[in-house]
């Protein structure tokens, strides 16, 4: 069954306090050299064939991401 991966991230100009908190915690845990952390969401969908990529983009844009503050990438995974 075909798999589709959608990754949703906050637009770069939107404040990401969770990413900042993670970044702040890293030196305390002994990890150096990390310059920035942004946190997003990863969706994995199993879909019926045939894969209609345009329709899936519409799904992602309507529900999985809030286009006011988020952007997404969509990938149909090779079988």
């Amino acid at each position, binding site marked *: 069954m075909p798999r589709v991966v959608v990754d949703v991230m*906050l637009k770069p*100009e*939107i*404040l990401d*306090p*969770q990413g900042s*908190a993670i970044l702040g915690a890293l030196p305390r845990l002994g990890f150096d050299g990390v310059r920035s952390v942004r946190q997003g969401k990863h969706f994995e969908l199993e879909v019926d064939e045939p894969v209609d990529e345009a329709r899936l983009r519409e799904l992602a844009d309507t*529900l*999985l991401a*809030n286009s*006011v*503050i988020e952007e997404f990438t969509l990938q149909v995974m090779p079988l």
Partner: protein
Amino acid sequence: MKIGVVTFPGSLDDRDARRAIRVAGGEPVALWHGDATLRGVDAVVLPGGFSYGDYLRCGAIARFAPVMQTVIDRAGRGLPVLGICNGFQILCESHLLPGALTRNAHLHFRNRDQRLRVENTATSWTSGYRQGEEIVVPVKNGEGCFVAAPDVLDRLEGEGRVVVRYADGNPNGSVRDIAGICNDRGNVVGLMPHPEHAVEKLTGPSIDGLGFFTSVLTAAVS
């Protein structure tokens, strides 16, 4: 006058919104998310809570409820709609209002008695306040940080569509201290603070919130 309060799975402040309507002198009507009918109400309140557990994004799923199709349609034709907290989130997800609500900048849920300034008294829900009036109303949210693109913000400010603004401290990092906004017609208002929790001296920090509910009653009559 009948004011509907929608209950989604996970809504919490629906009972309190109905109480506030009653205290204001209106007739509260319980509306179910799954029914597209508004049962003849003259205005609608989308209450606070965690509809659908805030899954995916706050209000993201509630926005597609059958009742919302009707609310969106009627709002476009002038029906007064008040979105409180989660209700504000649902209004933004529905694109009835611009912008979005994100995680509080300090990452904590915060419940405080918050001072607000009423900056637009021309909306259906704030006509009973004085311009610039300061009121104290509880805020309680974890995802209450209002954001919008700079041009959207400028337009909101320019058109006087910031309805209430945080005064004396910003509880969640909302840009330009914006606590609530309205659409261009002024019938749809969304705000993060909870006026329904400030309608009784015994249980609230003040009765300053009552004005939201009395305003819409007079708006309907006129």
